[in-house]
């Protein structure tokens, strides 16, 4: 019953970003992500950051969805920042206390790396929040289809992705259901040390794994009984259409990335 709305899931509200062709969004995200690694100036990050913020605003996905997305990354960002600030000794010294030294270069590097990580995660989150999993998989299949000539199983890869994405909430629900059932039998997942907590997960993980295998079997049978024979000659219910606005979005992305990299 309870939907498990995890991090990085599709958020179905209407917005211009939701309307875009998934292929355009996948390519644009790839451009932004790759581009971010070539950005090395504060001005460049300001451009990329502003672009990401604008996209978040346009997507109409509530800010807390992105905050939820950033929470697990916060630790990595903090760690990166810490190492850069305290161990990179370049440029004039800003601060010295015993053996602790903070240099300007270190602070700058720390800030830039943190900005890169945060923008990276937000951009990736935008893609999954505004694109339905099935559309995303269709888009990726389409983008990979030229590789079919090289015997790359594009359809199979996309189908695996679709199924995996489709089953994340299902398995989440099942995990929740099983943990409730075990809680009803007195299981306690929140107290005790690390080892006790890990042991407390056994009554959830065993049934969950068994359930996952059972589901996989059932799904394979259901697909075969409906005549699934792989991608050959398969048509789609929803045809992807690449329209002017998709082209426009791509051009805009390229411009933003170029600006951010060159600045």
């Amino acid at each position, binding site marked *: *019953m*309870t*939907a498990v*709305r995890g991090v990085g899931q599709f*958020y*179905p*509200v209407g917005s211009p970003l939701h309307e875009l062709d998934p292929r355009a969004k996948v390519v644009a995200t790839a451009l932004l992500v790759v581009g971010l690694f070539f950005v090395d100036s504060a001005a460049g990050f300001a451009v990329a950051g502003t672009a990401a913020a604008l996209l978040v605003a346009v997507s109409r996905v509530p800010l807390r969805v992105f905050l939820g997305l950033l929470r697990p990354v916060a630790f990595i960002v903090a760690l990166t920042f810490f190492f850069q600030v305290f161990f990179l000794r370049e440029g004039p010294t800003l601060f010295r206390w015993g053996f602790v030294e903070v240099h300007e270069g270190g602070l700058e590097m720390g800030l830039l790396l943190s900005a890169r990580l945060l923008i990276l995660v937000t951009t990736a989150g935008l893609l999954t929040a505004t694109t339905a999993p099935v559309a995303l998989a269709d888009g990726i299949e389409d983008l990979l289809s030229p590789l079919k000539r090289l015997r790359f199983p594009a359809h199979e890869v996309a189908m695996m992705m679709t199924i995996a994405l489709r089953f994340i909430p299902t398995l989440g629900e*099942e995990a929740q*259901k*099983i943990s*409730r*059932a*075990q*809680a*009803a*039998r*007195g*299981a*306690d997942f929140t107290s005790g040390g690390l080892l006790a907590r890990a042991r407390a997960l*056994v*009554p*959830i993980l*065993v*049934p969950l794994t*068994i*359930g996952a295998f059972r589901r996989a079997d059932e799904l394979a049978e259901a697909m075969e009984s409906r005549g699934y024979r792989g991608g050959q000659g398969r048509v789609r219910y929803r045809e992807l259409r690449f329209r002017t606005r998709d082209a426009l979005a791509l051009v805009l992305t390229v411009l933003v990335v170029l600006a951010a990299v060159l600045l």
Partner: protein
Amino acid sequence: MKIELRDVRHVYSPGTPFAVEALGGVSLTVEPGEVLGVIGGTGSGKSTLVQHLNLLLLPTSGQVLVDGADALSMDRTALRRRVGLVFQTPEQGLFAPTVEEDVAFAPRRLGLDEGEVRERVREALGLLDAGHLAGRSPFALSGGERRRVAIAGVLAMGPEVLVLDEPTAGLDPTARGDLIGLVVRLKASGVTVVIVSHDLDEVAEVADRVCVLGGGAVRAIGTPADVFYADTSPAPTTVRVAAAVGERRLPGLGRPVRYGETLAALRSAMGGTG
């Protein structure tokens, strides 16, 4: 123990586009020692309702009272020991290498000593006619056996109230009959039972009171005769037959609900003519 729900509302995923109101103000009392049947179509809120009885789900608004005291301020773990909840298809939660160890999970959590744990396991398995399965792997059992073992796993806690959510779904008629027998035995030993079911015949056999849920609200509550004879469209076979024959054609038929009662009522009303 007496459990009272007062104007309980429950909304899943509140504040998101996925928000669903599963319960819209339900008030209900589970009296000590009774067997309460909860019926209603799929999506009527039955499963959500029963999870409030041991606070696995917390009400979005409203109150849950246990023996008159606010349950929300009580120790949840202690409450869950007193109110045993058996979920739909509980056999999906089996995990231990042997039946015995699986059933022992709950009593071990209670911190009982090993002798007491063994005694509880033996007792619970005995109640479900599953004593002979103790040494087997739960994954090598039949569907009906696994269901019984899973229910034993909750009974081994020694709950005062046992809540069964669709305990007979997907079982064969013999296994269904056995489970209904279990409810009768539990009641005789003083355990309060709440049984959720789609099978009206089954509810008719065991329930002291029936609660009809629909669209997240209580549509009717009362004795089986009052509830089922007030609206016979979804009623047990016994009630449908008795209502179709009718008091007018067979004076003295009354309002029988259970199979035995109905048979006896029909026999005596038909008198010499039968």
